[in-house]
């Protein structure tokens, strides 16, 4: 008798990314059933949504999303199925970076993240705001479970904060280190751990850089002694290698999302993996 009742009480949540899925699962515990609408190993901007995910979106009670312009496919999906009644835009729960970009661009360049950089989940501190927004939304759907959600959140954040202290201590010797990133994914991560992203390999996301840009980048790296390139699993390997060789730099591949790398299996493992790899790479440069 109890089993159907429990199933009926479960809140179905659709998260747009695996990172948000992990945070929803951490807050909701066994009261929620959450799935990610995207595969972290694919480009989130060019996502083609599958029938299975449309069905998930259609039957969900709550949608948790990154917001800004990170999910352009979501508007198309919402035309096919009625979106869930409850919706959390997590970008409203954090302090964004890269918002000083003017709406009117004088240089007329393509600009993907016009409303601020959306990779804010890569700062563990931001999990405080995001999980608070998720807990509020879940409590609106199941008010009786408010205490459970708050308690789950408190325990998760305690673990995260303890781990963050450890991660910061691990990277503290490299505070102020300059790196070059392939994409503009790491400003939140860099700020939290005291690194400086001096430049990016791709001047405009998704468009191969010109020879002049690559030459300038290599010259800048040589001149300022930047010897680490932070790549992601989907980065153009031969180009990154060429730049690193030209500048006498090392390449370290980090996971931008939970599941983008087999070692980054959950939200804590994501940072554990990235911090360990980055620290090892920076140590080796000394």
């Amino acid at each position: 008798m109890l089993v159907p009742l429990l199933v009926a009480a479960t809140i179905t949540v659709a998260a747009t990314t695996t990172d948000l899925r992990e945070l929803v699962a951490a807050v909701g515990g066994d009261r929620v059933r959450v799935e990610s609408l995207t595969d972290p190993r694919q480009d989130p901007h060019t996502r083609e949504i599958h029938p299975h995910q449309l069905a998930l979106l259609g039957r969900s009670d709550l949608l948790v999303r990154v917001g800004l312009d990170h999910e352009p496919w979501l508007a198309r999906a919402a035309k096919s199925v009625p979106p869930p009644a409850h919706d959390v835009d997590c970008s409203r729960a954090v302090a964004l970076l890269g918002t000083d970009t003017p709406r009117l661009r004088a240089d007329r360049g393509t600009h993907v993240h016009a409303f601020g950089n959306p990779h804010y989940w890569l700062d563990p501190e931001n999990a405080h705001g995001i999980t608070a927004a998720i807990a509020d939304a879940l409590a609106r759907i199941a008010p009786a479970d408010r205490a459970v959600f708050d308690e789950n959140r408190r325990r998760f954040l305690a673990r995260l904060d303890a781990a963050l202290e450890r991660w910061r201590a691990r990277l503290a010797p490299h505070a102020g280190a300059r790196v070059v990133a392939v994409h503009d994914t790491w400003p939140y991560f860099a700020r939290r751990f005291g690194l400086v992203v001096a430049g990016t390999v791709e001047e405009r996301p998704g468009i191969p850089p010109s020879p002049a840009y690559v030459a300038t980048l290599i010259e800048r790296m040589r001149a300022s002694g930047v010897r680490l390139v932070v790549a992601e699993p989907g980065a153009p390997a031969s180009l990154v290698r060429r730049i690193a060789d030209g500048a006498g730099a090392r390449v370290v591949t980090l996971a931008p999302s939970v599941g983008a790398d087999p070692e980054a299996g959950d939200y804590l493992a994501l940072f554990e993996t990235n911090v360990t790899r980055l620290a090892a790479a920076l140590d080796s440069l000394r």
Partner: protein
Amino acid sequence: MTLPLELLLVPFLACVVLAGIHAYFGLHVLARGVIFVDLALAQVAALGMTAALLFGHGPQSDAAYYYALAFTAVAAAVFALARRPELPPGPHVVPQEALIGIVYAAAAALTVLALDRVPQGGDQIKQLLVGGLLGVTGEDVVRVATLYGAVALVHWLCRRPLLALSTGGAVTHARAWDFFFYFTLGLVVTSSVRIAGVLLVFSYLIVPAVVGTWVAATLARRLVVGMAVGGAVSALGLAAAFAWDLPTGAAVVATFAAVLAVTALLRGAVAIVRRRRHDRVRVLSATVSVAGVLASLLGASLVVFPAADHFWLDFTERWAPPVRDAFLTPGERQVFADATAAIARGTEELRRLRGIQADAQWGTRDLAPEQRERLGQFLAGRDELVAGDRLVLRSLRQRARERQRFVLGIPLALAGAVVAATAVIARHRRRRRGADPGSLTATPGEPVSRTSRC
């Protein structure tokens, strides 16, 4: 050697190697009339690479290459089996291009299906399409040069049956030779796509061969012209990519298109000059009527849609500002001049300050965090001001358009129509004169003398 040259030397060498072998294969492909076989083979190779990714191999691994090659061999066999030269073309014979198109579409769809299950699938598709010319290493060039040299040698040894097959001659074991041709083409395409991407490989195959066919008569000359064109376009495209800050592969493809267009125009001009006087008049009158219709349409579009983009008018105004100034009041002209000067000043200042910002970011200039923040804020504000000045120019141009609408648009539409109509009527008259019984005695193409008809 300076860094830019160092960066471009290896890609250039790779392009030269590609130009050589692809110009040769391109002549065969043109002669056979299977233009899209290269795209189909490239797509099948991509499918093979994707299959390798599905089974856990890396995109640049040897395994991926051999998967691609195996898939290409299957496609080559299908193309060889599907060729039915013994059947004359007719309504019941399906052309080989149809099968090539189907193979392309099916391979592309299967690649998308497979890549959906592969990490970074979307990125892989993008990289396969545009290639990574800048990332090519010296070893890559040596490897493909050796392979292509071997393929070229084998083709030279077997040149008789291969040439006969491509030009429609009779060959024993035609299917086996066909398979050999498509397989070696597949081998070359698979290797080239890894370094240059699908679009660039297609350009190297077709454009030099087309130019060679246009300007030379014998196969050997066409080959030399094709290789020279491929090499020259590579140098031009890479230089353009460097000078104008463009993605390399796409810049070379665009240069190919531009060279083809210029060659076509020159060829047309030479053909007109070489024609007899009567033909020249005919071509000239056709050109004048097309130009008249075009001018008439441009004028009409200015009347009907003054707020739309009129690039021809923008272009004219840039070279002859009075065309715009005549339609602005003295006050508006002053605002236009002020805004133009402000944009020039603002752009220069932005460039300078962005340089300072980049220096601070790279650590080559000391800037306190507070100064950095203020610089960022100032740049954002300055950027908006320049964009605002651009809006002022746009709105003034729009005002001028509203006034140009009838004053320029209607006369242009009418003049164009009159020119086109006159050219068409003159042509019609000439044709009637040509059809006159009195002209039967005249040699075709020669102007008919009035006295002979009297």
